[in-house]
């Protein structure tokens, strides 16, 4: 049985509800879980499922996404044959701007023509899970399906498996058969296709708003969640940085937190996610904080329910208090309070 799969990541998603975090990046490139970007999860899932040709279709602000992915080396996708492909949309914002839009695939139809993989997985870029697509494909073949939609508790995860030949037919005829997106094919019931559902029962979080970003980030502190997302057998790959181990100073107090490398922790950190190379000053208290890469917090601050994007600088004696429903978000590179020269 030919079980080879092509991986398609639709990274065009754009939500106003997460505006503060996508000023300079696409949703796929939002930092998540201390050292990852959202796209790392589906991309690693594809690689761990044996997919060795992955095409990414980005649309807005994809500089940081390209910078993150590079040649695909970290995912073992820098191959002579197949590997990682990047297909930005040549069109500006318009009515075709939807997940699984056939027009964006048609713009790069040669990729599909040249691929020899029998099946294709299509997924969005901002779903956090650790799923084995081989199991989905097996189910798809056994049930004799034309298109399989992956769902969680009845909701679509915007992940589909279908034959590459069928996808090519759908793409090449989208302007005369009335189906312009994959979603229409699955949901409008006009087609003669056998549509199946694959109910996934593992942990899933879809990040599409500040609230969901905050809630699901803190979800990672539950051992049952991180154990499921980061199993040894199916690791989540990401761009590596040569940061040293994190240093906990004598004055540090850290509880129930996830901390990446390269940090210097002098203060009090509780229920928080700390990204790489963050500095937390003395006598500062952080609770329910998401502190992204290279941010620094001075001394004697109190931060409660906050999200600090990358390179945020906070002086000393600052107080920032948000709520669980409405965390305070400081955008990338912002400066709060008076900074003491170090």
């Amino acid at each position, binding site marked *: 049985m030919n079980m080879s799969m092509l991986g398609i990541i639709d990274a065009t998603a754009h939500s106003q509800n997460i505006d503060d975090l996508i000023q300079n990046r696409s949703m796929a490139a939002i930092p998540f*879980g*201390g*050292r990852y970007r959202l796209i790392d999860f589906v991309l690693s899932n594809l690689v761990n499922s044996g997919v060795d040709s992955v095409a990414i279709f980005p649309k807005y602000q994809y500089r940081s996404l390209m910078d993150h992915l590079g040649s695909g080396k*970290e995912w073992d996708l820098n191959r002579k044959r197949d590997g990682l492909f990047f297909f930005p949309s040549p069109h500006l914002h318009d009515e075709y701007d939807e997940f699984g839009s056939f027009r964006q695939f048609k713009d790069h139809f040669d990729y599909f023509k040249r691929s020899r993989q029998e099946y294709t997985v299509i997924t969005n870029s901002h779903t956090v899970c650790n799923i084995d697509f081989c199991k989905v494909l097996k189910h798809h073949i056994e049930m004799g399906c034309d298109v399989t939609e992956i769902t969680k508790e009845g909701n679509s995860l915007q992940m589909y498996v279908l034959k590459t030949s069928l996808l090519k037919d759908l793409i090449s005829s989208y302007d005369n058969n009335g189906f312009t997106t994959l979603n229409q094919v699955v949901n409008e019931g006009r087609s003669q296709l056998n549509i199946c559902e694959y109910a996934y029962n593992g942990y899933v979080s879809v990040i599409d708003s500040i609230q969901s970003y905050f809630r699901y980030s803190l979800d990672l*502190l539950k*051992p049952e969640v*991180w154990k499921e*997302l*980061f199993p040894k057998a199916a*690791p*989540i*790959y*990401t761009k*590596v*940085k*040569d940061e*040293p*181990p*994190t*240093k*906990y*100073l*004598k*004055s*540090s*107090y*850290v*509880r*129930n*937190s*996830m*901390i*990446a*490398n*390269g940090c*210097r922790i002098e203060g009090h950190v509780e229920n928080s*996610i*700390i990204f790489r190379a963050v500095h937390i000053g003395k006598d500062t208290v952080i609770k329910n904080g998401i502190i992204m890469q290279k941010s620094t917090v001075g001394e004697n601050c109190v931060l409660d329910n906050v999200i600090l994007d990358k390179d945020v600088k906070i002086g000393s004696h600052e107080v920032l208090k948000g709520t669980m429903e409405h965390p305070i978000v400081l955008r990338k590179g912002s400066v709060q309070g008076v900074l003491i020269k170090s």
Partner: protein
Amino acid sequence: MKKKCVAMLLAGGKGSRLSSLTKNLAKPAVPFGGKYRIIDFTLSNCTNSGIDTVGVLTQYQPLVLHSYIGIGSAWDLDRKNGGVTVLPPYAESSEVKWYKGTASAIYQNLNYLEQYDPEYVLILSGDHIYKMDYSKMLDYHVERNADVSISVIEVPWEEANRFGIMNTNEQMEVVEFDEKPQNPKNNLASMGVYIFKWSVLQEYLEMDERNPYSSNDFGKDVIPLLIEEKKKLVAYPYKGYWKDVGTVKSLWEANMDLLKDDPELNLFSQDWRIYSVNPNQPPQFISAEAEVTDSLVNEGCVVYGTVQHSVLFQGVTVGKDTFLKKCVVMPDAVIGNNVYIENAIVPSGMTIEDGTVIRSNPELEEVLLVTPDYIRQQQVAARDAEVTEKRT
């Protein structure tokens, strides 16, 4: 293609005094500093000094070292022209030529150097922890028009008898070399870092090889011969952190040095990064019951217990109600619940059963190496003590 300076990194050492830590791997591959292996420091120094052609000479237990170095991409040494080349001993016509000493190791790879036709050859050892800009030493070597430059560091007088001591004149020219002298006249120790003029290196290695009485060692044979022949040897004074982590205790001490508030060897500085093969591990998780202070902790660690003044490498698990103090815990070690360990090195992949207590004798100031053998001995001793107690 011609290169100005090519580095030859001697990485074949067994490091016998590191006991079972080097049972299955060469000393340069021994883990250090929560994330690194000893050789990372020398390789990163090369990259940061702009030296892009490095021959790594291996011999003892090379498997881990070879797979770790790979094609050198971790240090940005995967180059089309130059880059890193691993040079193990090889068979020639009828016999396998093992590297007898440091000099014979280089001699047997003169053909590697010939293909780059360098002006200078930098000889390094993969056994030391330090940050050094070799390009500055090369400038000094060129400026002094020396045949050989030897990097030296001031060591405490009372320890000078453990090192190769360089006796110099006022122009910093080396007039005498004392290997581990009883009564040192100087406290300038050789760091095992040499820059040779390529022509001088070729000539003297061939001369040394022809001498049947030579042990083919740079320190013992080649350097004294060069002094005797009145070649121009200059000492290059180095200031900064430099440590030979040759024993279990010195390895532990060098790890503890990193925990100082302002350590002499700063791993955090951006301008002289120490590169290494990055393990792909999730961030470290510090649980609600855990306490971590005054420590270095790497990715992939899961801590439920108390960790004080310790270095935890990637993937270490520390169980509930466990107490670690002044410990170096190497990659993927699993420490159970209710464990107490103080002043110790726990090697890679060790599993410590629940309830184990490992405490060194505080009067001896010893550092324990917690191996499976050590644990077995402890258990036997405990059982014997129990038996004796029952009898009395």
